């Protein structure tokens, strides 16, 4: 009788074949289709649900904590009222959010609803985010007159509407009430007042007048805000074909930022690594030029603070908005549900958003709500500045333009290049980017 024991060679042969089979099975194409461009109406995932089926809605929230957590609660509230839905939320920060948007744009899949900024409409309109004119025109609850004009207008691109706005968040001047009262000074209303008052508070290296960002988006936004004070609203011309910031307004704005650190010396420089939020919270800084989103931090520190609209030649500030957009591949039934959810959050939670997150609600009625008015005068400066808000350039090349400006403006504050040379070089680069369609 033959010995039927498995030899080592045979075992290896069988194991290798099994491994190969597993690898081939793993690489086999999936049998279930995912929605692709142009096919959304006909795929099983988008068919109307039967009475006992749960519809899954994917919502991407790039707002990030702490406000992002608040937005999650609004979504949970909607979910409890709609047990026939299963809302999958993904909350993250903006960097990973936009990385994922870029990836899904290429693949042809995406969430049913997400939050974004108006400047990204230029990059992703029609590619990822679809127009919602049809939804708005038949809706009885969402009307333009219900919203503040600035954030409402930001939801449009080339005459089509792509979003409904939730808020406007902008830069303004916070000040420490206790420190100013102790020094017997009033909140500054103009740049000259601010310079004198900020100098009086400065006792380097522990006590500072005001923060000045010197890198990243911070310096970019600050420069845009200051430039609007000097009369230049935005860095591009009206049809977004040419850079218009290499002028007195652009130079004065950048020079003012430079002087904060090196001439008047009431802002800490980049080498010291001072954390502005910590310094202002610990009352080591009298003023903080920052955004609505800092309300969370100041409230947590139990700071006695307020905000004031201050200006140079004319009022102006940089700002942005959180807007709800509807990626094009959700399909008709899902897009309607996503619309209803976005509408619910805007109409029912705008006051909460303003109260707790600090952002100025886009909904006019929320601004007039007694609970929201109770946050005044802390946030009064922001509400006053809303009509003068300047957004980031709304062109497809906006990220490359932002990268150029971040580097260029920062190099001035590192004393590597003069104001004049930096703006001249950046003007040429921005014009080159605008001339190169994506």
């Amino acid at each position, binding site marked *: 009788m033959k010995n039927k024991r498995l030899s080592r060679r045979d075992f290896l042969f069988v194991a290798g074949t099994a491994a190969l089979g*597993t690898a081939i099975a793993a690489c086999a194409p999936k049998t279930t289709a995912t929605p692709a461009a142009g096919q959304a109406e006909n795929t099983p995932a988008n068919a109307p649900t039967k009475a006992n089926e749960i519809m899954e809605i994917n919502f991407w929230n790039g707002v990030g904590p702490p406000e992002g957590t608040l937005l999650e609660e609004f979504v949970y509230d909607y979910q409890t009222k709609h047990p026939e839905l299963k809302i999958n939320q993904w909350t993250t920060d903006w960097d990973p959010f936009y990385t994922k948007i870029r990836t899904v744009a290429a693949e042809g899949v995406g969430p049913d609803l997400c939050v974004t900024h108006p400047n990204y409409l230029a990059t992703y309109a029609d590619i990822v985010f679809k127009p919602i004119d049809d939804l708005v025109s038949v809706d009885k609850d969402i009307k333009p007159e219900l919203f503040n004009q600035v954030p409402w207008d930001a939801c449009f691109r080339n005459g089509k509407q792509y979003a409904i706005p939730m808020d406007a968040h902008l830069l303004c001047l916070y000040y420490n009430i206790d420190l100013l009262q102790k020094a017997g000074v009033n909140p500054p209303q103009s740049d000259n007042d601010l310079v004198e008052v900020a100098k009086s508070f400065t006792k380097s290296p522990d006590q500072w007048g005001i923060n000045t960002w010197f890198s990243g988006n911070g310096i970019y936004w600050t420069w845009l805000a200051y430039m609007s004070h000097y009369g230049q609203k935005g860095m591009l011309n009206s049809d977004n074909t040419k850079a218009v910031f290499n002028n007195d307004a652009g130079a004065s704005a950048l020079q003012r930022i430079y002087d904060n650190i090196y001439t008047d010396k009431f802002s800490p420089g980049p080498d010291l690594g001072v*954390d502005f939020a910590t310094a202002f919270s610990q009352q080591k800084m009298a003023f903080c030029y920052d955004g609505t989103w800092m309300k969370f931090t100041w409230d947590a520190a139990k700071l006695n603070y307020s905000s004031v609209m201050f200006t140079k030649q004319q009022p102006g500030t940089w700002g942005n908005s959180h807007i709800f957009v509807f990626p094009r591949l959700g399909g008709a039934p899902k897009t309607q549900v996503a619309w209803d959810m976005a509408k619910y959050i805007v109409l029912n939670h705008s006051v909460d958003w303003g109260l707790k997150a600090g952002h100025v609600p886009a909904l006019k009625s929320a601004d007039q709500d007694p609970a929201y008015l109770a946050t005044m005068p802390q946030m009064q400066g922001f509400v006053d500045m809303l009509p003068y808000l300047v957004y980031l350039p709304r062109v497809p090349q906006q990220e490359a333009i*932002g*990268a150029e400006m971040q580097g260029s403006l*920062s190099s001035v504050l*590192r004393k590597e290049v003069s104001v004049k040379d930096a703006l001249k070089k950046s003007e040429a680069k921005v014009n080159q980017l605008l001339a190169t369609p994506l």
Partner: protein
Amino acid sequence: MSIFRSRFRLRSESGREALTALLFMLPYLIIFLVWEIAPFFFGLWISFTNYNLLHLNTLKFVGLENYAKVFTDELVGTAFLNTVYYAGGLVVIGFILALILAMTMNSTRFGSKFLKWVCFIPYIMTISATGIIWKRIYAGQYGILAQIFKAVGLPSLAFLNNSGTAMPAVIVVGIWIGIGYWALILMAGLQNIPKELYEAAMIDGAGKWGQLRFITLPLLRPIIFFVLTIAIIGSFQVFGLVTTLTGGGMGEVYGGNPGYHTLTIVMLIYAQAFKLLDMGYGAALSWILFAIIMVVTLLQMKFIGFGWEE
């Protein structure tokens, strides 16, 4: 016919073995081909196009345009110099320290196991965790180092924000991560050197320096070549550590600290390809980096060599 049959029969045993081995390796080979080789050549192809993830409908061949752009992009020069700075500092200082550590661990009887364990921990920590911890250590106002400086009366400094100290600070962390691993490899090589050679050298009157120069270093050459090669390749490809330490602030596109003093080549490639979506240009930069690393490795082989023939 019978000759063919006999040849086939002779080959069949080794043929079966070869086939078995191939089947066993096949899953890995498939993965290697699909996820390593195919993207390698796909990257080469897109480096000659205007490949943009959002605008694939306007994809076209652009020839050497992306490669030509490398010579006009100021940031490429900055990133390249920063990368060479990082690689030079890490490899030279790190290697010397690793060799000293290896020789110490090899000659110490007591506590050497504990020392090996302690030195290897940084290597097995995740890069992002390492970066976050060191970022806290280096932080300007409330960082651990700043507090120590303040306590002894020195002015505190934001090491990662300062143009002069940012890259040295990153190099220190790179050395901290890699030194244990390199030391362990070097120590394995040291343990293979016969002790009789050192005994004979001592009898002949050679001191410690002479033993190092004429016995240790020559016999350790293959290991030194290996350690230097992996250190150089790794340092040219540095990304996660530098991004965690000095990147990602308030919507920065490139990272690399204010002023790009720690912007490396791979950070630039990542920003171009995955943030600005200019994948054609990113791919061209990747291939240039590959060519640079290849040249450096070949030069290493020529001047340091494998050392096996000795």
